[in-house]
């Protein structure tokens, strides 16, 4: 029994969970409105979108790379979604599916170039980020699409029951699917294998090239989904969607214990990381602290989290105790 508890405590999500519970308790004690249904709803809306953004990056961290174009793909999908409904008058579901396909394509472009050329993902996604953003601006001329159907607006802003918004449901489904993928599906295991030891994965006969393409394709779809969800929540197709996703997309997985070198990520940890960021952002507002300081806090969280992960890695390496 004690061994099991110890194992749980050492897992990636235990630390963040503890922080959430304690932090949440402290904030609630000081500002009771924190736990009001309205506030919970606001929190959940933010968490729903951000979780999908974080998962989009988490997959790429899992394979040992980084995806700077997460926001650009999300933004392009978002304006496409809104634009298709407004200009081509497509029904929301169809527009959503097409927007997801755009995300898939964007991801595949990244994955294909990275896999075939072996050039660093950082640079490729820096280039593609500009290209996707450029296409976005070219289409929208920096003007938002205002005519979003009421059904979509409602989905992004009303509740299922209690304080739980509808927007939570696609997030929960996504989280479960990603978890299932990484633990019980070959593609997911191969992504983690390539991230864990690329050479060994290759020698075992895994196609590193296709695994990379799969990972980026999935990342693209997830980014697009987040973009679609944001359109629903913001109630317009804003071209600037995605511009500020970069920091968050790294902060949450890293808080959740992800190893940047690849091979180890935690879905639960990432989601909890998103929750932490949402709570902190909220708290800054509640305590009337300058919202600009959110950036500082996010950066500080990243430093702290990678520092902690690094210490754990070093201890892990040292402890490679020989049975």
């Amino acid at each position, binding site marked *: 029994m004690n061994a099991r508890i110890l194992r749980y405590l050492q897992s990636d999500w235990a630390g963040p969970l503890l922080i959430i519970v304690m932090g949440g308790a402290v904030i609630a004690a000081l500002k009771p409105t924190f736990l009001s249904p309205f506030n919970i709803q606001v929190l959940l809306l933010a968490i729903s979108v951000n979780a999908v953004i974080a998962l989009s990056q988490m997959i790429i961290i899992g394979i040992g790379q980084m995806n700077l174009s997460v926001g650009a793909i999300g933004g392009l999908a978002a304006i496409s979604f809104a634009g298709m409904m407004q200009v081509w008058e497509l029904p929301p579901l169809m527009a959503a599916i097409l927007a997801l396909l755009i995300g898939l394509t964007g991801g595949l472009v990244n994955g294909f170039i990275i896999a075939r050329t072996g050039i660093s993902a950082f640079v490729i996604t820096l280039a593609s980020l500009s290209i996707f953003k450029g296409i976005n601006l070219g289409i929208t001329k920096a003007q938002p699409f205002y005519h979003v159907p009421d059904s979509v607006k409602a989905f992004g802003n009303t509740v299922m029951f209690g304080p739980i918004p509808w927007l939570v449901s696609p997030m929960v489904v996504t989280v479960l699917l990603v978890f*299932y993928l990484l633990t*019980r*599906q*070959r593609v997911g*295991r191969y992504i*983690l*294998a390539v991230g*864990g*030891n690329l*050479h*060994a*994965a*290759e*020698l*075992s*006969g*895994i*196609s590193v090239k296709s695994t990379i393409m799969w990972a980026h394709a999935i990342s693209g779809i997830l980014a697009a989904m987040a973009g679609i969800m944001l359109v629903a929540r913001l109630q317009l197709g804003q071209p600037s969607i995605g511009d500020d996703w970069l920091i968050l997309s790294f902060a949450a997985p890293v808080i959740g214990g992800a190893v940047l070198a690849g*091979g*180890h990520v935690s879905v639960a940890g990432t989601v909890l990381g998103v929750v932490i960021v949402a709570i902190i952002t909220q708290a800054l507002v509640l305590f009337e602290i300058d919202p600009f300081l959110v950036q500082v806090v996010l950066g500080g969280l990243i430093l702290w989290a990678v520092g902690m992960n690094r210490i754990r890695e070093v201890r*892990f390496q040292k402890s*490679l*105790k*020989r*049975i």
Partner: protein
Amino acid sequence: MTSLLEAQNISKSFPGVKALSDVSIHLAAGSIHALLGENGAGKSTLIKIITGIHRPDSGNLLLDGKPFHFSGPREAIAAGIGVVHQERNLIPRFSIGENILLDRLGGSLFKPIDYESVHQEAKGWLDLLELDLDPRTQVSQLSVAKMQLVEIAKALSLKSRVLLLDEPTASLTSHETVALFSLLKKLRDDGVSILFVSHKLEEIQEICDTVTVLRDGRNACDSQPMTNVGRQDLVRLMIGRNEQIPNADLRDHKTEEPVLELVKVATELGHADINLTLRKGEILGLYGLVGAGRTELAKSIIGRYRVTHGDVLVNGQKAKIKSVADAIDAYGIGYVSEDRKQEGLILIHSVLDNASIPIWKRLSARFGFLTDREVIAAINPLVEMLEVRTPSLQQLVGLLSGGNQQKISLIKWLAANVHILIVDEPSVGIDIKTKAYIHELLRKLSDEGLSVLLITSDLPEMVALADRILAMDQYRVKGEIVNNRNYPEVSEKIMGFIHS
């Protein structure tokens, strides 16, 4: 016996070095075939060509008499060729079972991976090797030896017809080796063709049926039955008839000043109670098996790692070596790294830039600037003295042969005017001629006053060069003897120290 797998007249060059020249090997079904050769003889290259990691420049590869060429590991595996490489290739955070069955995990779009059956099947393969391990264990928790056995289990699970094992017993205990050998014999009886690469002649003689020896990228012998070849023959084939690098005369340094002393030294890497005295003009050998901690000790002496206890004395004075820069500038100690390509040289920089690194500061001392002309003036004489074969000083070091690269490594320290030089595995991957040259050079320099700490796993080299020899094992000094150049006697004593 017809050959199951054949390599005929394989040649392979990498820029700067001809790795294989007209090499042939014939693996018969149901046999264990030894592949012998010194470091750099071409064994690993041959294996990589067979498994498709490299393409041969010329020659044929035949499987079942039909030519083949694999473009990647997957094809090799599918064709029934399994490999266990020298370095470990496992996914650290995956379980043993998942690692073994990594390419056969099962599951599809709608069916999750059944880990129960994965681990159960893995257990079967572990049992074959008499490995009492829980297949759910994360591989990172295992010792290097157990990891190697897991990889062997993995190769077995592929039910290969040809099994290539590169130094499979390097980290195994004798008990584990026994279990492995009985298994290999069983596989042989079942018709599997096994290629066994090893340094350990006793093992080769125990288990192998045929032997191929490579030397300097060529066949010294091709697929000879073991019955025709004795131990001495094997040694002679491996090191070559004219290898007789002349033993240097005996010298006595008892009356010389100690230039380097380690007194009860412990390091952050795990050394403890290290006592060592190096006298002026002496070549002190540091012998040990892989993992003994010699390179780590050398790196601690030059300041790369911390000395946590005890004293290091240079020329009789206590030395505080806080960094490698300290060791070079303040104490005149240099270190020729064993890993020439990764740690010894900057392959993408020129001969000139590589050889002059330690002297940049000195050359620019007056105004803070230095020009190529000054650097050339300092380096060129040494390049000529050591007869380095390079088209120009601007030649990128990565393009030079191993022997010439090693000369550049040495020039670096000669230019820096060190008076204590630690040389780590000076002859790895170097042709015989340069090896002899380097031996002579070290001998001459020490006669002129350079004090050398020689680290080598090549016992004949040690006996030929060193004046005194320390034996190290498990990060401790186990014994010391004065070298009388009598190989059997000295080697027995040293081995005695190590195994005590």
